[in-house]
């Protein structure tokens, strides 16, 4: 390629363009004005002065006051109030585009439904809808929190009551245990008594036997007494005999002493026998008395009753043991229930006792929406300028026959295509430093000497793509009007699909892919990556490769179509 010739043609084309003072002025003014106007429009994404009407049966209603305060303090809405139910008024005002939404507050706060009418034909409706959803959720959340707080308080009370019930049950269980022990003791005592009764019964038998034995004893004593009488009589007889006998006085005296001693003994024995008899009688009497007492005591009935008592005690003790077991089991269940409550409380109380909070961190610090939309505005301007300039200038030169003359000259077609492309891209890029300066000075965009150069480079690549697109459009457009209208088919969808006005995520999936692959989107991403955050090199490489691929494709198409269209 003849560089000198190329530079000469480039310089002359530029000179020709710049000699048209109106084009020259517009070349500078248009993009700068667009950047400033659109940029200022995008400085804030927060809607303000949204006209909203609010009404309710009672302005003293807590819900009305809360809603009014929330809306008023948001700084977004211009609120106007109406008395009573105002649906008709809201409808009329929405229809006349006087308000964007109307809120009707019900009289009752409990189970309240706030009626909200939104003008869904306006873009701000999405914001209003989200805002109202948020505030109604906020109010519901407050109610919910109060309810949850009350619930936790009740749960704490229940826990305490379970503690008290458990203590009561434990105490009752202990009492029952003691009662059971007492019953066992009573039962033991009853057994002792029963044994006593058996012993008494045995004693009674002994008494009976003793009485009969005493009877024999009495007979024996009577027999002894009778024997003593006989002995006494015999001793008297012996006395008399002795007395009758002539025996020495000494012998008589000795025998008389013996007989007297015997008689004394007999007397003593008689006294003893009498005494024994009296004792026996007395004992018999006592025994008989005892026998009578024992008979009167009805020991068998006593024993039977005692047996009944023992049996009843045994049954009662079993029942008490069963009740105690049940009480112990109940106490265990209550303990388990309390533990479950405590576990649930420990686990969920921190979650439910406080509303769900979100901590929003601004990842890009103090960056504003305009910082991110500026690259898109920039590439949009370049797209418009590159496409329109190249298509219209090409058609102008073709209509004057200049292109024909150039194409039959020794200047090759490829040379011509490259020169026209570079020229138009260069012209499109002339205002770029001024646009960037306006961005820095007016919109406060952070562009410095380090990122400005790569930004200009990306813009240059993008300009080439759209210059070629413009040439393609010009190749099948007969007039400049056709070219401008045809350019709109390319540039307008790209503008709206660029994500500057509507988020990509709002598009259908196929459009999202298409929007993400558009050269304007790729360039905007690259500039964002160069300006506000660091895109990974591989991603940057892929995006650049996409742009270069666009250049290759558009250049091929342009070459094919333009050659035919000259």
């Amino acid at each position: 390629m003849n560089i000198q010739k190329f530079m000469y043609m480039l310089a002359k084309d530029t000179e020709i363009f710049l000699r048209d003072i109106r084009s020259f002025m517009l070349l500078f003014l248009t993009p700068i004005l667009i950047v400033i106007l659109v940029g200022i429009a995008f400085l804030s994404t927060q809607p303000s002065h949204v006209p909203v009407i609010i009404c309710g049966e009672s302005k003293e209603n807590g819900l009305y006051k809360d809603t009014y305060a929330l809306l008023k303090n948001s700084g977004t809405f211009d609120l106007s109030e109406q008395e009573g139910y105002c649906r008709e008024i809201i409808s009329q005002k929405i229809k006349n585009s006087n308000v964007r939404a109307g809120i009707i507050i019900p009289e009752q706060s409990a189970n309240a439904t706030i009626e909200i009418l939104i003008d869904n034909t306006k873009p701000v409706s999405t914001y209003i809808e989200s805002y109202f959803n948020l505030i109604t959720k906020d109010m519901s959340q407050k109610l919910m929190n109060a309810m949850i707080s009350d619930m936790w308080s009740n749960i704490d009370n229940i826990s305490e009551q379970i503690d008290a019930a458990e203590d009561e049950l434990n105490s009752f269980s202990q009492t029952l245990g003691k009662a059971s022990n007492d019953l066992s003791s009573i039962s033991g005592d009853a057994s002792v008594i029963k044994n006593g009764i058996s012993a008494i019964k045995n004693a009674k038998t002994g008494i009976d036997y003793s009485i009969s034995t005493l009877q024999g004893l009495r007979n024996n004593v009577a027999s002894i007494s009778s024997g003593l009488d006989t002995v006494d009589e015999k001793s008297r007889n012996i006395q008399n005999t002795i007395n009758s006998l002539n025996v020495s006085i000494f012998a008589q005296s000795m025998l008389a002493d013996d007989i007297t001693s015997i008689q004394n003994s007999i007397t003593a024995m008689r006294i003893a026998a009498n005494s024994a008899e009296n004792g026996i009688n007395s004992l018999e009497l006592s025994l008989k008395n005892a026998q009578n007492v024992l008979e009167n005591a009805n020991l068998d009935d006593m024993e039977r009753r005692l047996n009944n008592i023992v049996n009843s005690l045994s049954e009662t003790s079993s029942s008490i043991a069963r009740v105690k077991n049940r009480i112990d089991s109940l106490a265990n269940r209550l303990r388990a229930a309390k533990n479950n409550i405590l576990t649930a409380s420990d686990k969920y109380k921190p979650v439910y006792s406080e509303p769900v909070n979100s901590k929003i961190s601004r990842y890009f610090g103090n960056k504003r929406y305009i910082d991110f939309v500026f690259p898109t505005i920039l590439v949009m301007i370049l797209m418009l300028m590159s496409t329109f300039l190249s298509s219209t200038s090409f058609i102008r030169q073709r209509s004057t026959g200049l292109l024909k003359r150039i194409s039959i000259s020794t200047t090759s077609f490829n040379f011509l295509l490259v020169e026209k492309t570079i020229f138009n891209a260069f012209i499109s890029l002339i205002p770029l430093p001024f646009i960037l300066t306006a961005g820095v000075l007016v919109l406060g965009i952070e562009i410095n000497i380090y990122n400005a150069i790569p930004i200009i480079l990306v813009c240059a690549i993008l300009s080439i793509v759209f210059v070629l697109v413009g040439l393609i459009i010009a190749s099948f457009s007969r007039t400049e009007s056709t070219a401008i209208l045809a350019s709109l088919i390319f540039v307008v969808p790209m503008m709206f699909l660029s994500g500057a006005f509507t988020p990509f995520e709002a598009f259908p999936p196929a459009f999202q892919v298409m929007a993400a692959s558009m050269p304007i989107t790729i360039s905007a991403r690259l500039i964002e990556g160069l300006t506000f955050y660091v895109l990974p090199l591989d991603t940057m490489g892929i995006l650049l490769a996409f742009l270069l691929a666009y250049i290759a494709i558009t250049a091929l198409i342009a070459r094919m179509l333009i050659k035919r269209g000259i």
Partner: protein
Amino acid sequence: MSNVTVDLGKTRALENLSLNVNAGEIFGLIGRNGSGKTTALKVLCGLLKPKNGNVFLDGQQVNTGKNEFKKMIGYCPQENSFFEKLTVRENMKYFAKLYDVEQDTGKLIESISKSLCLEDQVGVLAANLSGGMKRRLNIACTLMHEPQIILMDEPSIELDPVSKGELWKLIKLINRTGTTIIISSNNMEEIHYLCDMVTFLENGRKVYEGAPNDVLSVVYSREFWL
């Protein structure tokens, strides 16, 4: 031009057209609008590739896109095809650059502008020239690479009678330097004044060929149209 057939879309613009132009003559192509005159010129200068047939210059095929043949041919379209925002000199220099003219363009501009009576206008913006001067500049741009053959498409169209006369004289002047000129026109007076040989085209076909007087007498004859 030998047996050239050109289709423009579904329309047959030229059909087996053969033309024989002698060196140094002014050759005229006449016919009604749409008869194929401009198409024939486009084929001659290489703007259109014929479906059939070839173009030869001194026995060599010229429609091959080679620069040596491109330099031999100059095309002067019926529109004023130059840059309105450049001066006469700048336009002439631009066209010299287009054809990679190696000689001193300053002298060439001086010489051509003088011969075309443009020497007083060389510093004037093309947009500010009169119609006749613009047509001269159009021709001057064609002459910048000193072609052996000049193709002129309706050269005097939209010119006033005085300017037409001056232009015709100029064409004659150029022709006298030995340059072969092929003119397409539907102006019989122009053809009669300028041309040595004339071909009458009708619907892309050669209807008649001969000296201008002969052709004109035939074309104006009742029999021709019946």
